[in-house]
């Protein structure tokens, strides 16, 4: 199954993310974001952080999760590429994100993402899995 694909968007970057279930969808959304930020080919993780988050709905939790990782990318200088979601119920999330420091991987950086936006956010769930379109402000 494809993890994500980029969609045409005039001003920003939009992606359609797929997942077998909600956990898989959140994992792939985080992967998509860092795949846009940096070249993740052959990337080996060496550091990790723990994340505990809450929000009012799955959609809001998804953006809170992405923005939390983005905040850590900018302030701790870590490019994340591996995500392990231990708990996710639509309003709460507990996860571990693994990556490497930017300083030793500066040549991998591609695109600055300012934020994951809430624009037209709608998680679609069906028997085959789930998908969501996310617009990143770049």
């Amino acid at each position, binding site marked *: 199954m494809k993890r994500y*694909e*980029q*969609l*045409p*968007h*005039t*001003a*920003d*970057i*939009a992606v*359609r993310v797929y997942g077998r279930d909600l956990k898989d969808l959140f994992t792939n959304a985080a992967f998509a974001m860092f795949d846009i*930020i940096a070249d993740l080919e052959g990337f080996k993780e060496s550091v990790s952080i723990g994340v505990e988050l809450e*929000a*009012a709905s799955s*959609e*809001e939790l998804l*953006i*809170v999760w992405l*923005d939390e990782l983005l*905040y850590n990318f*900018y*302030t701790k*200088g870590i490019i994340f590429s591996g995500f392990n979601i231990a708990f996710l119920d639509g309003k709460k999330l507990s996860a571990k994100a693994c990556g490497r420091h*930017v300083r030793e991987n*500066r040549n991998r*950086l*591609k*695109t*600055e993402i*300012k*934020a994951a*936006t*809430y*624009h*037209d*956010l709608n998680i679609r769930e069906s028997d085959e899995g789930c998908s969501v*379109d996310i*617009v990143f*402000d*770049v």
Partner: protein
Amino acid sequence: MSRIEEVLVQTWTGPLEKIDDYRWRIPKSYKSGMRVDGMIYADEHLLESIKHDRAPEQVANVATLPGIVKYSLAMPDIHWGYGAPIGGVSAYDIDEGGIVSPGMIGYDINCGIRLVKTDLTEKDVKPRIKELINGLYNHVPAGLGSEGKIRVNPEEERKILTRGAAWAVSRGFGTKEDLEYTEEKGAMEGADPSRVSERAYQRGKKQSGTLGSGNHFIEIQRVSEIYDVKAAEIFGIEKGQITVMIHSGSRGFGYQICDEYSKDMMGILNKYGISVPDRQLACAPVKSPEGWAYIGAMKCAANYAWNNRQCLMHLVREIFEKVFKKSFKNLGMDLIYDVAHNIAKFEKYNIDGKEKLLCVHRKGATRAFPPGHPDLPEKYKPIGQPVIIPGDMGRYSFLLVGTQKAEETFFSTCHGAGRLMSRKTAVSACRGRSISGELAEKGITVMAAGRSTLAEEAPEAYKNVNDVVHVVHEAGISKRVARMRPIAVIKG
């Protein structure tokens, strides 16, 4: 077109009623909940590309927000944004439940542009262009992950947030005259650092004096056309003269503030009985603790951005001084003006015979005050506020002035060329080509920090800025003064 593109690229099928050659109305009957009409400034040619975008729907969405007066407006460089369209202008009556919305100002609070004149000509600059561009590229931190040289302690940081560009001037990074020629004199009153989270401080602290990436740039240009001799004389420019343009904003500091307040406002929509057609339009009444808190924080980000552009201009002046071995004053490097194009402001307008205090949102739109406006520097009162419109890196940029007729747009006009192609499409269209080579053939030197920036920012990815400026000039909401052609460009 793939199935996905068909789903996403919805062609507008709603009503667009022609008012005149440059104005088109989306009547409020189009969609339930619209409180006012939508109005798009465009000619038939630009309207074609606007219709193949989701932007008109976003104009209609904005028209549903509480307290909106007159119209939900869109400038001719309008394109699909998140929440509100880019190129959108709307104003809210704060005594009638009028709102403020972080998403309708944007993540890059006070993204804006400044134009610096020089007394140099192309003849002076051409032989030194490599030296200048390399000097700028090495001296100005640009691109993703770059860090600024200006480091301050938390107490100084708070001073930046309340004093804006005056902080840089107090450190010797510019002159008092620079402040005179900056919108709001480089700082909005009422900035409240206590409304800024620790996280925003953390994201912003290493980024003062950095350009950023994507469409942020420094451009050395030549004045190629003068349309209004009198105004150009007051600005101190003539044909052949060299100018420098700087485009940047509030960096991670502003992005974090927008993100946090957008989320907070989503949680209080019910409390104020507000429903929004798109979560990104989350808002709160200006006259509410939440609305007021955001405004205090937004002003901090706006001031951070003015300080940032002041620091960037200082770095540019240092390189010119080094290359030409003269002080920037002797090089005539005066600031013509600095404008914000992502911001909310409180301005008074006459609405149905009554003076009202409105919260005017401009997202990808420029304030354009008319001649005689009290907020203008004395020197510009006879001609109106300078409006700086960057185009793409291969064609032109413009200098315009505000007009009285722009009262109909809450004294607002366009902000740039507006994108025509997505970044992805632009990269595909440029595959196998050398954009820097193509521009070099046109006499334009470019350098970019990001590896795909040049393809993403290729001239063809943008609308022709001539077309955009033609509309605002003909519609009378601002007036052409001069056109500049790029000589050298640094992209983030």
